[in-house]
């Protein structure tokens, strides 16, 4: 153990993360690794901070290495500790906690955001956009109603921040020094289209804006420009650029220019010190995108193992990660004497494409509005392909080459094996195909896990899927995302994600924003959308009854002859003489032809005329009955057995617990129906082990079960976990149901949802993560405020009268 060499790494970011992964995969025991990070957390996908800021992803979803990973790899993590000094003679690094010796040192300190040196830059409310702390501060600022943001810098980072803050409801102004947005990546025409798009979203764009000062007393209040313009601001985001973080390297006397100078093997001027990432300079170039940095990280890992490897300069391509904007740029596209260009514009479709050519080769590409061909052009740039033969049709992209247009899958199939699919991780087509074939991969997640393709910024996900389709054929087609219905190409997950991310709060808004292809949806998508909106915005969304299936619209079950059946709640299956008498009276009074005990421990009255329903409910209501929701995608029954009150084997009060659950959860809408049961002992007379959620009482407490089925499919439940008290049972199952409510596809029962999400994932979130469980619980409780209104009494007192009465009765004689 002790004679293992000591590797110390400064900076727990994306570059060092990749380097460690590569190193530990190749030689897990080569080094004792100590990892210092100034941030109080391990490595996460920094690129994805933009979607986190926009609310489209959570921090948990972008963690690259979690505590388990570091532990499994024996890395000593020193997060929250900044390295202040490197002593090259003693071979130690210094932090506030003391000194740590190294045999080999890797500097991976990334970059520091550039802060313009103007008055007011230190005021609270001025933030950079670099790490999770910045994002959290911005999210907090955005939460105040009517809050205003000024983003200084109209480059990649600034615009991603602006779009995200806008989507959180802030008023946003973008100040940009240059004449057009993203001038480093875009030419003026594409810059204009982008500006129009952002302005269309309500973002103010001010170009040629020279910021003079940030104003405010206690905290930021406004931004002042040279021309006298003042923009009020509660938040100022500085996104004007980055500088390699070189301070400790300079102090240590390493060779530093703009960045820490490294050679092809990633050595600094000290043979025991390597450097990778944004903090370095290689052949006079500093990189600010992960693709080349990952390549560099791979080289560093090999160098540390004494293997030969060399880093060579790389071209980079950029994509803007703003939902709904397609933009791609690569290479060099400044005008020049020796250069030629091909431009395609389609103003109505908002498409602009420009290729810059030199000596019959593409040297630059800007694509706006339709960027799917980006990687194909990028490939030609890097391979210096002679394009003379396809010049005429080049701008139309890959699908037009060689005659008839190809479908996207065929186009991917036609790519050469060395074509790059994932820019971030530098994964080429051949690598992915080989992984699919040799490892028998069939899902996108598996391909991500094994190849890293599309695992960083995710913009190439479509390409990877097409490649899987081309490689696996039918076998992949079945895995592909199924659209919700014929009115959209989006799947349920995507629709649910976008409803939240874009804060869509009505069915027309969803259809407009997500580009539904039919004018009013159909009987499949409308109820699904209505449910998703009810679930996500319980307080704000006005339930659209016209989008509900008839049973839920009139709160009874339609029968084959157009009459209805009515099933009142019998809490936990327990009833009384008074209740039974009331039912008997209603049956007599309205001539109800059939009364039946259901499979759900309650009583069904069948064959009621629609116009009688409100009166039937009024009578039942007087006896204390409420709707049993026998028609609802919602909580149906909670079956119970007699339990410890009566049964000689009963271990707990299963009847009481079942009633408590039903009283707490009734009225909630869910993706599909939810049925529960509580049995007093493992003899399980309430059949809890084939329910969506079931509880088996035992001496020591309660076993919670879920994901059973006994309808179209038969399936025993899975165990969620064991808890000791009734209170805990409630919190766990409520949280479980809320998780399902938020993630389930419409009409997907719990057992199918669980299969899709993974039983372990559900157990982890509900049993192990207290905070998350409580958050689910709270959201359920909040939504119940709006859901627990008895629909029958509402209708008995006149709501939706029109549903139950004919518009007119015509005598034929009068008509003639």
């Amino acid at each position, binding site marked *: 153990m002790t004679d293992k060499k000591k590797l110390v790494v400064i900076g727990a970011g994306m570059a060092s993360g990749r380097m460690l992964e590569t190193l530990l995969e190749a030689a897990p025991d080569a080094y004792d690794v100590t990892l210092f990070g100034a941030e109080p957390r391990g490595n996460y996908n920094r690129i994805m901070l933009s979607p986190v800021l926009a609310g489209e992803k959570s921090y948990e979803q972008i963690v690259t290495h979690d505590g388990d990973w570091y532990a499994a790899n024996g890395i000593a993590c020193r997060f929250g500790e900044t390295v202040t000094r490197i002593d090259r003679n003693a071979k130690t690094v210094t932090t506030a906690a003391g000194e740590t010796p190294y045999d080999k040192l890797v500097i991976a300190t990334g970059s520091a955001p550039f802060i313009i040196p103007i008055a007011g830059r230190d005021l609270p409310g001025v933030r950079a956009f670099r790490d999770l702390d910045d994002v959290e501060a911005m999210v907090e600022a955005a939460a105040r109603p009517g809050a205003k943001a000024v983003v200084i810098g109209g480059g990649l980072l600034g615009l991603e921040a602006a779009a995200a803050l806008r989507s959180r409801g802030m008023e946003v102004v973008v100040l940009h020094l240059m004449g057009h947005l993203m001038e480093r990546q875009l030419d003026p025409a594409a810059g204009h289209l982008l500006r129009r798009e952002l302005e269309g979203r309500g973002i103010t764009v001010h170009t040629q804006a020279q910021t003079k000062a940030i104003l405010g007393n206690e905290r930021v209040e406004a931004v002042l420009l040279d021309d006298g313009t003042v923009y009020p601001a509660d938040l100022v985001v500085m996104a004007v650029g980055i500088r390699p973080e070189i301070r400790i390297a300079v102090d240590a006397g390493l060779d530093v220019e703009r960045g820490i100078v490294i050679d092809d093997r990633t050595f600094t001027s000290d043979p025991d010190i390597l450097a990778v990432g944004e903090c370095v300079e290689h052949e006079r170039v500093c990189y600010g995108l992960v693709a080349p940095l990952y390549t560099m990280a791979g080289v560093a890992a090999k160098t540390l193992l004494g293997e030969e490897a060399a880093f060579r300069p790389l071209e980079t391509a950029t994509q803007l990660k703003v939902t709904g904007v397609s933009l791609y740029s690569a290479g060099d596209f400044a005008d020049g004497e020796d250069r030629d260009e091909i431009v395609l514009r389609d103003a109505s479709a908002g498409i602009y494409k420009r290729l810059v050519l030199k000596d019959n080769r593409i040297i630059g590409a800007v694509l706006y509005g339709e960027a799917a061909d980006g990687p194909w052009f990028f490939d030609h740039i890097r391979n210096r392909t002679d394009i003379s033969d396809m010049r005429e049709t080049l701008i139309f992209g890959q699908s037009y080459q060689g005659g008839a247009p190809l479908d996207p899958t065929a186009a991917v199939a036609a790519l050469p094996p060395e074509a790059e699919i994932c820019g971030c991780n530098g994964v080429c087509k051949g690598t992915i195909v080989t992984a699919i074939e040799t490892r028998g991969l069939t899902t996108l997640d598996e391909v991500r896990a094994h190849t890293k393709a599309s695992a960083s910024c995710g913009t190439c996900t479509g390409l990877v899927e097409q490649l899987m389709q081309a490689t696996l054929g039918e076998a992949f087609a079945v895995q592909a995302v199924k659209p919700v219905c014929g009115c959209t190409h989006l799947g349920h997950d995507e629709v649910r994600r976008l409803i939240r991310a874009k804060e869509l709060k009505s069915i027309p808004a969803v259809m407009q924003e997500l580009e539904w292809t039919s*004018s*009013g949806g159909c*009987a499949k998508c409308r109820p699904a959308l209505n449910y998703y909106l009810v679930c996500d915005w319980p307080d704000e969304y006005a339930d659209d009854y016209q989008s509900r299936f008839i049973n839920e*619209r*009139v709160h009874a079950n339609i029968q084959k002859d157009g009459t209805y059946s009515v099933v009142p709640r019998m809490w936990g299956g327990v009833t009384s003489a008074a209740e039974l008498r009331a039912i008997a009276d209603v049956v007599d009074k309205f001539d109800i032809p059939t009364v039946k005990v259901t499979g759900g421990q309650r009583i069904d009255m069948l064959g009621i005329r629609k116009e009688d329903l409100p009166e039937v409910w009024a009578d039942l209501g007087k006896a204390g009955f409420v709707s049993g929701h026998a028609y609802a995608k919602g909580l149906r029954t909670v079956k119970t057995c007699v339990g410890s009150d009566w049964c000689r084997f009963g271990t707990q009060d299963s009847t009481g617990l079942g009633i408590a659950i039903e009283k707490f959860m009734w009225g909630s809408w869910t993706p599909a129906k939810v049925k529960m049961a509580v049995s007093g002992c493992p003899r399980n007379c309430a059949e809890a082990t084939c329910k969506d959620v079931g509880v088996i009482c035992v001496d020591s407490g309660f076993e919670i079960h879920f994901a059973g089925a006994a309808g179209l499919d038969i399936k025993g439940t899975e165990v969620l976990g064991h808890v000791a008290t009734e209170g805990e049972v409630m919190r766990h199952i409520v949280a479980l149901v809320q998780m399902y409510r938020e993630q389930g596809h419409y009409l997907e029962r719990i057992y199918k949802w669980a299969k899709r999400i993974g039983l372990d994932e559900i157990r982890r979130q509900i049993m192990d993560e207290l905070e998350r469980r409580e958050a689910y619980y709270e959201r359920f409780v909040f939504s119940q405020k709006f859901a627990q209104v008895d629909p029958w009494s509402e209708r008995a007192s006149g709501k939706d009268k029109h549903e139950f009465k004919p*518009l007119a009765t*015509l005598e*034929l004689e009068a008509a*003639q």
Partner: protein
Amino acid sequence: MTAMTTNWIEIGLLEDIPREGARLIRTPSGCIAVFRTAGDEVHALDDRCPHKGGPLSQGIVHGTSVTCPLHNWVFDLSTGLAQGADEGQVATYPVRVREGVLQIAAGKLAAER
């Protein structure tokens, strides 16, 4: 079949029918469903699905179609024709709106029945 001059009968107000919804009118020979689309078009059809008699007035209205509540056949509201692979047709009746008042053509009513 007598009249070229259509005799219109008032049956209620447009606003009595919810958008993307329907109401019934009873006649001695059966029910007619009057539909109102999201764009305030009105259509009247027999309230009997040609499949198994489902009450079309209870279906979900989308665009200018309705989906039968019993087994999901879809009908075009203006022609009464079943859409997609299903075959069948429902009788339709002329209806119109005059200053917010719904009117149905008596002639067709009488003739059909």
